[in-house]
């Protein structure tokens, strides 16, 4: 999906947990998430902590859309 959309010329970033899979299938911009069932918010933490994590990682993803990179890139996250 990522590739078809990128092929059509849209800037795209994939947020996922299985980075090697995303790399193998050819995603070019990747932001890591924390798990498969809850990519952006660990239910064992508070709602506030979940939102903080989600807000941060989505912010990284948005910045990734503006990044002029020339190879597959995994964008670092702080938490």
């Amino acid at each position: 999906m990522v590739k078809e959309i990128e092929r059509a010329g849209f800037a795209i970033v994939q947020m996922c947990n299985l980075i090697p899979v995303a790399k193998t299938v050819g995603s070019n911009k990747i932001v890591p998430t924390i798990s498969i069932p809850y990519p952006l918010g660990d239910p064992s933490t508070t709602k506030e902590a979940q939102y903080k994590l989600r807000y941060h990682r989505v912010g990284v993803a948005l910045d990734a859309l503006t990044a002029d990179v020339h190879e597959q890139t995994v964008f670092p996250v702080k938490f």
Partner: protein
Amino acid sequence: MKKAILYINQFFAGIGGEEKADHAPEIREGLVGPGLALAASLKNAEITHTIICGDNFMGSRQDEAIAAIEGFLKDKEFDIFFAGPAFQAGRYGNACGVVSKFVQDKFGVYAVTSMNEENPGVEMFKKDVYIFPGGKSAAAMKVDTQKMAELGDKILALPEGEKPMFLAAEEGFYPRGVRHQVWLKDQKPASDRVVEMLLKKLAGEPFQTELPIPKIDRVDIAPPIADLSKATIAIITSGGIVPVANPDRIQSASATRWGRYDISELVDLETGVFKTIHAGFDPAAADADPDVIVPLDALKAYEKEGKIGKVHEYFYSTVGTGTTEAEAARMAREMIPYLREAGVDGVILTST
């Protein structure tokens, strides 16, 4: 006796080479050129007609050629369609693919062809039609037509209405990216097979994966967004988030359907309104707060702050477990016109 029809180009019909490549489509009764070799191997059908078309005619006036061929075929009875073999001839490979796919779609008859691996027709049509790896030149005519005939005979031998479940690894055609559910002859369960595979791997012995990853097809990185504060951002997920009634009946695994849902008036996805139908993970966390998969609350916050221009009015969803690359690619291609129409600049795709 069942009936077959064969498509060939002007060269193999003996009409001429490049100078005759504009030859208009025609149909002849009986066998022409490669039809003789094919008929020698084909047991379950008689080749009743041969369609001939110049490669350039097909290349540059495809709609006209296809319309003519449709006219030839509409009053013919036939049970299978063959094209080529096209060897390494690119335009001929394209023609065989175009015609085979058209005949399959229009007349519901399976088509079989053959092309050398270097023929661009392989990449273009291997997902649509049975294409056998073929030789580089007509020297391979006998072998290539034999492979086509063998699969053709098997298709013709299927009971009425039964769909073919042929495996690329067994039959030898180019893998089509189609996954079948099959019963193994030895009935060995997956748990035993995976442990055997692991033991072989640990021992450094050769083993055969059951899920080969298709050859990598890289896409150039799309141009970055210059000004995020004016950009429209869309969100797509393969995590199966849908309105609780799942109005598009997206499958929980091996999805072939997708949906898009209006979020223009929402600032987050509420539990009880949205949920996940993804069968590949425990849905508890996502059902309790769908934003953990479709982070609408964070995106809307960025919209409010002015970091992004706006969030696209719809989010797009399907299920990514057991879904083949071919299906995923098709669904993405179906989404693209909507993204274009809405002037979307960038996409966040969340996967589970």
